[in-house]
């Protein structure tokens, strides 16, 4: 039997019983007075935003990082994070959007621009003078780690270049790489392709766009809707042909599945079909394993590995499939973090006025890693902005679980981040 539990954003407000569990678990309210907590900014303030109230009553909602821990712990199913996201969009409409937030919302554009001349772009973005200037002029925190553009081209170029070596198979799967993998971390995509091909799948990489999440986070809903519609247009034919779409960045896949349709009220059949075709890579691998179709010829990896399931991953409500699958690797001593958030929350930690909050939020996670002992020299986490934040906070490299699995298959070097095949 089915119970009627899929509450839509607005009406879910009435389910709030004011129990304060969300405020108790909110990682931002725990470290600053600037955000009073999800209950106040969300269900409570929402009463004053509805029914044609002209102005948003509570601008502190700008300090909500959108991590969705409140949704995770709510016993009543209130969609607090979505209430807050909509409130931020309303404020953006009322007050306009600062240039800095417009820049941070457009990582696809930035990725493309920097990739034209990566050496120059890296020098321009990474030196301390320009970071100082970027903080003073735009308010982009100089302490937050910016990714570098790869010198030998982006993921798409590699995929094209290596077509001759790519596996052709009856079994096919579509890969949604997202902007991080496309423009900054092509090795995540290479590891993914290697793991999928090792299991006999031909990987299809269709043209695609940014999922729109950075725009949603910064309140540019109209722009985000264009991105989502573009993705629907570009991916629908694959969905109609019955392909499944896997992604390696949990925040992107969450946006395609749920955030974009829900926040933007995009409920067309195509949007729904896309939602139902998108999988997190390990959610998909877990199904493969359950069906007995995952190769488990893993080599031993003798390593203590602290693993943090990012907020946006937990927000999928699929459990921790990356942890389940990494647990199949012999020798790997996995340590599961219960820290609520790394702090970065996508673009949040890049904002100068919020950077210290982001670091304070991350402190629990950083000390968890430290507490795992001196043998630890690497961490694992599914989302790129979280990994970059964890690297700053722990001073050690962080890897995507798909890199760990690729290494366990003997296909990938964890230190150099290079494929061992080809």
């Amino acid at each position, binding site marked *: 039997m089915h119970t009627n*539990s899929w509450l839509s954003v607005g009406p879910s407000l009435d389910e709030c019983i004011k129990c304060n*569990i969300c405020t*108790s678990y909110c990682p931002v309210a725990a470290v600053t007075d600037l955000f009073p907590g999800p209950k106040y900014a969300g269900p409570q303030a929402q009463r004053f935003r509805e029914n044609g109230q002209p102005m948003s009553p509570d601008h502190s909602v700008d300090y909500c990082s959108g991590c969705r821990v409140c949704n995770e712990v709510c*016993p009543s199913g209130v969609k607090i994070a979505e209430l807050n996201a909509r409130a931020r969009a309303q404020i953006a409409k009322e007050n306009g959007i600062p240039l800095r937030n417009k820049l941070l919302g457009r990582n696809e554009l930035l990725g493309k621009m920097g990739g034209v001349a990566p050496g120059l772009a890296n020098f321009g973005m990474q030196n301390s003078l320009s970071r100082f200037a970027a903080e003073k002029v735009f308010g982009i925190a100089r302490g937050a780690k910016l990714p570098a553009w790869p010198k030998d081209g982006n993921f798409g170029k590699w995929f094209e270049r290596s077509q001759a070596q790519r596996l052709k198979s009856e079994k096919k799967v579509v890969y949604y790489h997202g902007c991080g993998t496309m423009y900054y971390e092509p090795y995540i995509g290479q590891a993914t392709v290697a793991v999928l091909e090792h299991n006999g799948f031909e990987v299809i990489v269709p043209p695609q766009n940014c999922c729109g999440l950075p725009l949603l986070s910064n309140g540019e809903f109209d722009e985000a809707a264009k991105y989502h519609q573009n993705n629907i247009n570009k991916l629908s034919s694959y969905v109609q042909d019955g392909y499944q779409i896997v992604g390696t960045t949990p925040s992107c896949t969450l946006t395609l599945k749920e955030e974009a349709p829900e926040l933007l009220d995009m409920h067309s059949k195509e949007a729904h079909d896309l939602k139902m075709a998108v999988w997190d890579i390990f959610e998909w691998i877990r199904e493969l394993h359950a069906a007995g179709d995952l190769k488990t010829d893993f080599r031993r990896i003798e390593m203590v590995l602290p693993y943090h399931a990012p907020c946006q991953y937990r927000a999928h409500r*699929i459990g921790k499939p990356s942890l389940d699958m990494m647990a199949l690797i012999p020798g790997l001593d996995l340590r599961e973090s*219960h820290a609520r958030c790394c702090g970065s929350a996508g673009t949040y930690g890049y904002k100068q006025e919020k950077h210290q909050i982001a670091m304070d939020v991350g402190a629990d996670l950083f000390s968890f890693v430290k507490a795992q002992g001196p043998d630890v020299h690497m961490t694992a986490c599914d989302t790129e902005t979280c990994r970059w934040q964890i690297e700053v906070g722990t001073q050690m490299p962080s890897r995507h679980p798909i890199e760990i699995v690729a290494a366990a298959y003997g296909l990938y070097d964890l230190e150099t981040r290079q494929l061992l095949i080809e």
Partner: protein
Amino acid sequence: MLDLLVIGAGLSGLMAAYTAAKSGLSVRVINKGLGSMHWSAATVDLLGYTYSNQKQSVKRPFTTITALRDSNPDHPYALLTEDGIRFALGEFVALTKEIGLPYGGSGSGDNLFLPSPAGAPRPTYLAPQAQLAGDLGRSEPMLIVGFKGMRDFFPHLIADNLIRLGYTARAAFLPLDLITARRDANTIHLAKELDDGARRVKLGKALKNFAQKGERIGLPAILGLNQHAQALVELNKLCEVPLFEIPTLPPSVPGVRLYTAVRNKLQQMNVRVEPAMEVIASSTVDGQVEWVESETSARPYRQRAQSYLLATGGILGSGFDSDHSGHIWETIFDLPITPPQDRSQWFHSSFFSSEGHPVFHGGVTVNRNFQPIDASGQVIYTNLWAAGNILAGSDPILERSLEGAAIVTGIAAGRSIVKGQ
């Protein structure tokens, strides 16, 4: 495949998971959101009142439970022997010791009476160490200390009510900025502030100046979150008189401490507690549960196990749902339940009726193995068990038996599941 999937992460679900994992079963706990324990004072209320006598609280719970077997044979306690109940409580006490959050009782088998945040005596059987010095059976006068500006904790109200009942008490305020620089903080945030040793020293010194010799000090339950045990030792030493915590309105720090410590223990035993997994569908075939599905961001997630434990809570939890007509159903398996299906029958005409309200009294009927049964007494699904507040036969809020029933039925169900595998 998992040996056991526990649905619900309240006290009964966690204790069942602990019991099964201790016997070597592979277990996972899934839950919709966090709940009951975050609202609970974290005391173990075994039996505080009876239906027949709401004016007089229960002094000797085990004597009353024995009588209850005859007067209310459907009561969850009546499904167990006295030894079974004592065993389960012993298991719980041993666990709390192991996880660094030791519980104690009166020592005599009688109920303890602890001051509530309104200054009323609250009957309970076991309490965390931090609350034990608040026992109203002790003779030391009480100094109730609050923090001026802290929400929902009023020491003068507590002391006045205690005095009215014949106890010796007085009240005092400390400034809130003694323990926090924040303008706005709830109990969890304040408890976290007292994880910091320097703040504890400041508080301890201030308390020492306040207390008179021979007194004991009652404070809101915010004495540390992750460093609670150490905070208690240090503060007791600094102020030189016994200290005790008085539970606050939610969020309840003692409840969060217990939840976190038990969850961490389960994690060490390879039991994962997965929040935000609401079960929305189930399939049964040939008298067995085949799978359950939980809601996700897209497609439902199908989960299978040898055995399933339903620990989803009562009508105040997620175990039941209802519609406007008064129809009530069990949310996952649509098991037969006892509450009245007519809205006009839900409540007694008198709000404070000693009989309680019928809607809170009902639930799922189980046999002595804690397996749900139908009206003819037949087990409904051979691999399904139930425990905690979802069970029929008692009104745990009226009886003050919520945690006691959760622990003993959770452990009993866990043992029955182990025996069945």
